């Protein structure tokens, strides 16, 4: 029984029987060379007793990867970073202190690696263009990397181009900017968004966005609900232009709209339906336009009613008992004030009722 106890005690601290090598990815058999693991750089330690750790050194650079960025740099403003990662032919990071010649645009920097990496911070030139990067070490050269330097939008003061004397009503109106350049004279990059804000002068605004092309941007508006004098401004990033006046022609009616009168004897009222309101461009007046009715009676009272245009028509009910009591109908719309007198037709529905 004493022998059993001795065996049990010894087995709790076993003498490990192994012929492994410990590395960064665990253990591998010293006899197993199929993965070439013995060539992986770094600490490798045989597990057999009495053998210390060894450090497998990497070989000469074989592959150079260059990472230059950020990929879009603001001219004369942001820092850039050119980085080279150097690997030997087994994929190991090269030894610290390996010399690297790095080309940053037209300049060359002589660097040394640390942790397989050589790097240099740089300031982009003030001119917007593409910068090319590359690195060489020993007889090896990297592929080319590229960074684009773009205009400093923060320094661009947008201005509107000269605008025509007036814009027609119910037509597209293009409002372009002048040439957009930064403090160094660089054109803003194609595709840069520029907003044009149109103040209708009646408390409402329109906003349209154009994209820059060859340094100029243009936004288009449709003048269906704008007429008269408005104010335009360009917005780029946090910068705005001065305000430019814009004149949009007043819409004109094509013809006098028809009026249909429908007596409503049950409530002692009349319903006036007016339309179509047609514009000079051949469209019906936009939906939602204010239509004001003024109906005066023979003996003096004037009734007012307001409606919105819908499909070119508007209607109003006024508390007048009979059509013969009406003196005159006056309509005010975006097309102007129209005195329609007593020119109406009676509703067919009325005839049926009668």
């Amino acid at each position, binding site marked *: *029984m004493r022998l059993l106890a001795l065996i049990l005690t010894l087995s709790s601290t076993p003498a490990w029987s192994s012929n*492994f090598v410990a590395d960064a*990815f*665990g*253990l591998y058999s010293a006899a197993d060379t199929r993965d070439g693991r013995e060539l992986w750089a*770094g600490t490798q330690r045989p597990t057999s007793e009495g053998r210390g750790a060894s450090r497998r050194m990497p070989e000469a650079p074989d592959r150079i990867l260059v990472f230059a960025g950020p990929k879009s740099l603001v001219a004369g403003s942001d820092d850039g970073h050119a*980085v080279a*990662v150097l690997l030997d032919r087994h994929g*190991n990071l090269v030894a610290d202190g390996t010399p690297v010649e790095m080309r940053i645009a037209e300049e060359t920097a002589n660097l040394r690696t640390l942790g*397989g990496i050589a790097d240099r911070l740089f300031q982009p030139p003030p001119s917007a263009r593409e910068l090319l990067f590359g690195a060489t070490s020993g007889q090896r050269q990297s592929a080319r990397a590229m960074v684009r330097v773009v205009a400093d939008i923060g320094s661009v003061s947008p201005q509107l181009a000269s605008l025509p004397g007036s814009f027609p009503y119910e037509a597209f109106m293009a409002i372009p900017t002048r040439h957009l350049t930064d403090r160094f004279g660089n054109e803003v990059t194609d595709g840069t968004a520029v907003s044009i804000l149109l103040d209708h002068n009646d408390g409402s605004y329109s906003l349209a966005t154009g994209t820059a092309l060859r340094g100029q941007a243009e936004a288009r508006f449709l003048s269906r609900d704008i007429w008269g004098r408005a104010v335009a401004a360009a917005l780029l990033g946090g910068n705005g232009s001065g305000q430019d006046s814009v004149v949009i022609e007043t819409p004109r009616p094509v013809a006098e709209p028809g009026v249909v009168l429908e007596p409503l004897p049950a409530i002692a009222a009349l319903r006036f339906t007016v339309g179509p309101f047609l514009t000079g461009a051949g469209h019906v007046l936009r939906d939602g336009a204010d239509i004001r009715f003024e109906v005066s009676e023979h003996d003096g009272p004037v009734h007012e009613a307001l409606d919105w245009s819908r499909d070119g028509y508007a209607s109003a009910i006024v508390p007048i008992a009979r059509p013969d009591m009406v003196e005159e109908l006056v309509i005010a719309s975006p097309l102007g004030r129209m005195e329609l007198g007593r020119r109406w037709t009676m509703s067919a529905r009325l005839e049926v009722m009668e």
Partner: protein
Amino acid sequence: MKRIANLGIAAAYLLVGGMILAMAANAFASAQERTQLYRYFSEALDPIEAHDASVSWVPAGTPLARPFTEADEGLVGRALGDAWRAYAVAMSSGETELLQDYYSGVALQRAGAAAAAAHRSGTRLALLDQTVAPTFYHLDGSVLQVETEALSVRFAMDADRLSYFEVSRDRLRTTLMNETTGLRIFSHEMTGMRAVEERARPTRHPGPLAGINYYPARTPWRKFWPEFDPAIIDRDLRLISDLGANSVRIFLPTQDFAKAQGDEPLQHLEAFLRLAREHDLKVVPTLFDMNPGYDPTMWSASAAYLHRVLPVLSRSDAVAFVDLKNEPDLDVKRYGPALIEAWVRAMSALCREIAPDLLLSVGWADAEPAARYAGLVDVVSYHDYAPIEGTAERLSQVKRAAGNKPVYVTEIGSSSYQLALGFPGSPLAQGRDIADRFSALDSANGVFVWTLHDFEAPDAAAVGRSPWVKKLQSEFGLIDSSGQPKPAAAAVEAAFEAILLGGG
């Protein structure tokens, strides 16, 4: 004579019919127990902490081109944690395809080859914790290099035997690339390795322990910590103390003390230790209860659990010793002895790193592994539910293997469940069994009884779903469901007195 024969046949029919009915009822009860509907898969699975709990950060030693923010720490920590968990999965399964989500370039080739080799040769690598410092960060965030000091475990399994095991502090240099789908490890090299020497272990003796395994009657197993009630525990600890015990053994489920549960469970643990101290009771906390497994994939989460729990335990002088795991030998069939031994060794090593002064044990289900692995622990403990006849002999074997280390039998017990006519047990038989077991274990340094209370609803996750076993498990208590002490309570009281008078 014929009448007697007919009676016999009728009785036989009745017996067979009764048995069929009983079997049907049993099958129906089992089906009821086993059917549970879940709306989502995730609700049915035991959640496993799978975040970057194992990664901690130290500031960069030199200025970086790009500031390394707290958000970066989260992203990179997750990338590193995920990568090493995926590598552990690849080693275990031999499936290396998944590695391309976490590794690229040179590291992908190497991780794939190394994982396949590890699967072939039965070797494993687990990073228990990682302390990471950024050393290089590209201004545009595309290239990152970090240096890591990792507590690493390397082991090899040869058939069912652990043929190599080593814990080391490794210095690692890892280069990550920010690719389309996130950060991936591009290069990974070890720049230094130092074997973790076994620390001088504490040699103090916890003294004689007369204890009781404890759960509250209405909130046993998984309900204990989420429904922690200090008033009930205070009352129960008084009962334990009144039984003459000087110690109590409790269980700290892995999931209940995971980082995701916040600090409340740790505050409850502190409260329990404080209450135990007020009742002059020593505590044996049992860690990793209901642990989801032993695979190295989860070892970093296990390490995070130890980093949370052990500081609380080491601050309290109420702790007698720490049971690393309850009955890991019962998992040998499923996981293999080598993996379980590696897990025990790895977690023991980490415990000694975190809390070197805590006495460590493993609560083996049987005496044989307790004897075999006595060298791994400071205090030897095992459970004895085996036939009473060999009880003293088993203890002798364990004591011989333990040498000078104290030996505690941390679970004995007997169910008083009675189906009929004293079968399979009874309150009286329970008392006799426990008294006999105490007598046979009189040379142990301490004995813990399972358990204080009967449980109306034992946790199926702990005892299984068999209605028969659940019935048995429900009546191991010294106090019945009405709160009355059973005859076994008197037997235990007498045995405790003997242990404490005998001095362990």
